[in-house]
């Protein structure tokens, strides 16, 4: 992931729970790529078919609340969405998001200033910019950014194991 990137916005409301992201009954679909075809199926039925890799979700508070189901983050990442900007994130989704290779940015200022289809620009650890407005954002911890750059925790772990083998 670059330190500066832009993407087309998908606007989401407050309190988007994990069942909204992917209904529990879809959880038995054997692989995540297939499962992702049902992402947001009730809230944004057009999402799965029309979302493009690099698109960015902009949401309200408490994004990802509800169960600890990892697949909620997994289906978003499987659709190539690697950044979510929200007013706040639910605790376990915060972990699962990064672990799935998604950059989660907390910002509560841009939601009223942008709509679906607008382009938002992110400068990691610096700011977010949309429609002529710019707001600062907190630093993402280095270890978490590294996980996102590696494409998720599994790759990050493989990379670490690889290093360990070399040292030995």
């Amino acid at each position, binding site marked *: 992931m670059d330190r500066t990137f832009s993407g087309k916005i998908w606007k989401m409301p407050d309190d988007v729970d994990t069942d909204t992201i992917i209904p529990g009954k879809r959880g038995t679909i054997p692989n995540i790529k297939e499962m992702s075809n049902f992402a947001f199926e009730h809230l944004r039925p057009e999402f799965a078919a029309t979302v493009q890799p690099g698109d960015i979700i902009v949401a309200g508070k408490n994004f990802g609340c509800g169960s600890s189901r990892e697949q909620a983050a997994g289906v978003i990442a499987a659709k190539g969405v690697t950044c979510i900007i929200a007013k706040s994130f639910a605790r376990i989704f915060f972990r699962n998001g990064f672990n799935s290779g998604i950059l989660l940015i907390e910002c509560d200022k841009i939601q009223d200033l942008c709509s679906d289809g607008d382009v938002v620009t992110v400068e990691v650890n610096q700011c977010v910019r949309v429609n002529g407005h710019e707001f600062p954002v907190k630093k993402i911890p280095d*270890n978490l950014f590294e996980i996102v750059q590696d494409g998720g925790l599994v790759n990050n772990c493989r990379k*670490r194991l690889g290093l360990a083998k070399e040292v030995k």
Partner: protein
Amino acid sequence: MGYTIVEKILKKNAGVDHVVPGDIVITKPNMFMIHDIYTCYLKDVLEEIGAENIDDPDRVTIVFDHCMPTAVATNDSVHYQAGLDLAKKYGIEKLHIGEGICHTLMHEKRYARPGEIATATDSHTTTYGGAGCFSTGIGTTEMAVALITGELWFKVPEAIKVVLKGTLKDHTLAKDIIIKILGDIRADGAQYKSIEFTGSGAHQLSMDSRFTIANMALEAGAKCALFEVDEKTAAYYDIPLSTIDWVKADQDAVYSQVLEYNLEDLIPQLSCPQGVDNVHDIVEIKGQKVDEVYLGSCTNGSIEDMAIAASILQGRKVADYVRFIVAPASNHVFKESIRLGYMKTFIEAGAVIIHPCCGLCCGMPYGLLHDDEVILSTANRNFIGRMGTKKTLIYLASPAVAAASAVLGCVAEPSDLYMA
């Protein structure tokens, strides 16, 4: 500068001198627990990663409690076999198969310890905070990596202080305390935070009561729930208090919120359909007919819970056309309940006894109900569809209320029996 309990535990384990909320620390958890819902998924991820070894198999336990005894034909044996495969491949020896609920075993076996860090693939991992252990749940992928590396990062949370004063009145119990708090702060009222229990009332509570409260604190979105360590903790773990008495909140620690409760003012509470935080005093719900009563779960399946219920059911019968299911939380609780005559009391009253396991709490086949039936359970969740159909109604309450309700066939408290 004072620290909260969670700050102290995290910085000690991570080996840093100072932390503030928001800091990321890298910890080495002392204990990892996996239960049998996640064994197959964990096995898949570990294979995907391609790890041949895990960091320290002695720090890992696999508990077979959700799918054991096997009760869902197509599923449970797969999860069971995956657990055995994991144990064999990675040299995990601490296996507990059909011995009881994971969260109960974690403190019964003294795997989760005061001042240490435990993590598990389950939300109610917060339970061991009753013993001053920082314990919280994580997802399967994260658990796989944590097992391989031995490390887990945490963001230091803010903390809410709950001061408990005074003494509970007869038959008002720990469960009523935590339900009351959930009703006040709601299902996201402690989102991301550490709930820390202090005050003379907290110290008066038994270990089982503390585990009950820490268990259900999760339902407020808490990252963890911690009780200060004291003589009771030391006695439970059979270790000198001096080795663990640092596990307490500093006087000048900074809390985002302080709540105070006078336990003398508390009366029995219920979580009503369909949310854990839809809390009402018992006086508002009394008389509501029930079809089934469930005594058990990691929240209220301890010997203390069995004792309270047995004392109320002694010499009494479950109401006609009401089913009463008893699920001791562990083999130890089961055997003690037999030895102390509680099981005999339950059976003579008309109860059905199931083997220690998660049972009906998570919707396994142990008393599933149909449309428009009502269950009163001592478990920790009452989401729609959890214990039957979408139209099954679930009330959550304490073991005392459960026992009284089983006898009268409607929501009741023990004092109603003496008047009946």
